[in-house]
């Protein structure tokens, strides 16, 4: 049955954004934790730890996110382990975002000159104290733009979670198109809603960067 694309449909799309947001939040949180660990492994003075971090990044960046979603949701259930879509999504997105955030943050940590570590070490600071008081504060400033850039990608990539049953923004758009046959209007609305999510983030990133710069 074909019906009109009405304001109610727009409201449904807006409502579907909550899943997009929830998935993004989970992915960013989980990915942030994993990413921090990976970044630290990758700058560790111990070679085996660095290798472990490198292998993780190579494997995850070399495999599609979709594959991880399938593995966690369908793969495990074939093995008899029932996994809720939330768990599957949280695990897949954390693994995926962790690799990319880890690489971004590693780059920022390594962009701080070796001489800053040396200056800290020469004053008797431990490795952890050098990171905490000298390296991380400087790296954070560098990390903001690429991190927000990745976050914006992440928002858009949450649409992949549709394959394991999430009716987030893009999926809701597909469903609406199926009943209204107005793909142009529907997807334009979907695109506008994504823009509404992403644009303020990029703006906030710029402001934050400026503020941190002013505060050094």
């Amino acid at each position, binding site marked *: 049955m074909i019906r009109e694309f009405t304001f109610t449909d727009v409201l449904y799309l807006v409502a579907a954004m909550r899943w997009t947001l929830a998935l993004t939040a989970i992915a960013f949180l989980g990915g942030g934790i994993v990413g921090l660990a990976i970044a630290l492994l990758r700058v560790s003075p111990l070679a085996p730890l660095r290798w472990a971090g490198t292998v993780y990044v190579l494997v995850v960046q070399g495999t599609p996110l979709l594959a991880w979603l399938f593995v966690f949701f369908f793969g495990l259930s074939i093995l008899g382990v029932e996994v809720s879509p939330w768990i599957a999504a949280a695990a897949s997105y954390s693994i995926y975002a962790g690799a990319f955030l880890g690489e971004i943050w590693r780059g920022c940590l390594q962009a701080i000159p070796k001489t800053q570590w040396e200056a800290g070490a*020469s*004053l*008797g*600071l*431990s490795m952890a104290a050098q990171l905490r008081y*000298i390296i991380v504060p400087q790296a954070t400033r560098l990390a903001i733009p690429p991190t927000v850039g990745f976050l914006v990608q992440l928002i858009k990539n949450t649409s992949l979670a549709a394959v394991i049953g999430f009716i987030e923004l893009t999926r809701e758009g597909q469903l609406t198109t199926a009943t209204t046959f107005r793909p142009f209007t529907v997807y334009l609305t979907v695109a506008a809603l994504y823009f509404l999510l992403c644009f303020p983030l990029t703006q906030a990133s710029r402001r934050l960067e400026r503020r941190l710069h002013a505060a050094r």
Partner: protein
Amino acid sequence: MPLVDLKDVVKRYGTNTVLNGVSLSVEKGEIIAIIGRSGSGKSTMLRCVNGLEPIQGGTVAFDGTIVNDPGTDLRKLRQHVGIVFQSFNLFPHLSVEKNITLAPKVVKGMAPAEARRLAETVLRKVGLAEKIDAWPDQLSGGQQQRVAIARSLAMSPQLMLFDEITSALDPELVGEVLKTLEEMAREGMTMMLVTHEIGFARKVADRVVFMHHGKIWEEGPAAATLGAPRTPELETFLSAVLH
């Protein structure tokens, strides 16, 4: 017992032998000037003293502690050995005060108010008391370098290492930093300084060490060694730097 004792120190980067059997002892209160051509191993030797560079042979001892012993707590050792670099290496995200107080607070657990007073004290020593709340990028090179010296002094080191600390400075700023060094010399600080300022070395140093090809080629009392070199290499070097 000498404060610093290097014995047959060998340092290699891959197949490149940078220090090839360096032995040197420094007594408490002594001021040693280290001179030599670029690449002769001056910085490397200095960095071995506080354990920034691992070595492949020989021993480095500071105040009886073997620096290159894997069991040595380098963090503890480095609280007693200050080092100042050519490129200042101030922490750009911290104010002058925080640059100075970071280590006393974090490493020694000093209270903030006491740390601030300490910052005032060491800044007065380098003549920059009024810059306590400035940021590194608001300071001239000479001022930044003096803050770096103050930052080291705040840990009350027994030994100060200086690696060409005036080389990155405009000529008119060199004097203020050298004056600070002279002040420290008068107070009896033990110092090892790599320098191209031959005149300053002659005036302030007790002993001069000339490095060549990773070895201590010639050493002796400052005035005698610089005034009458015994090796043609030192003679060539001196005539080159003195034009």
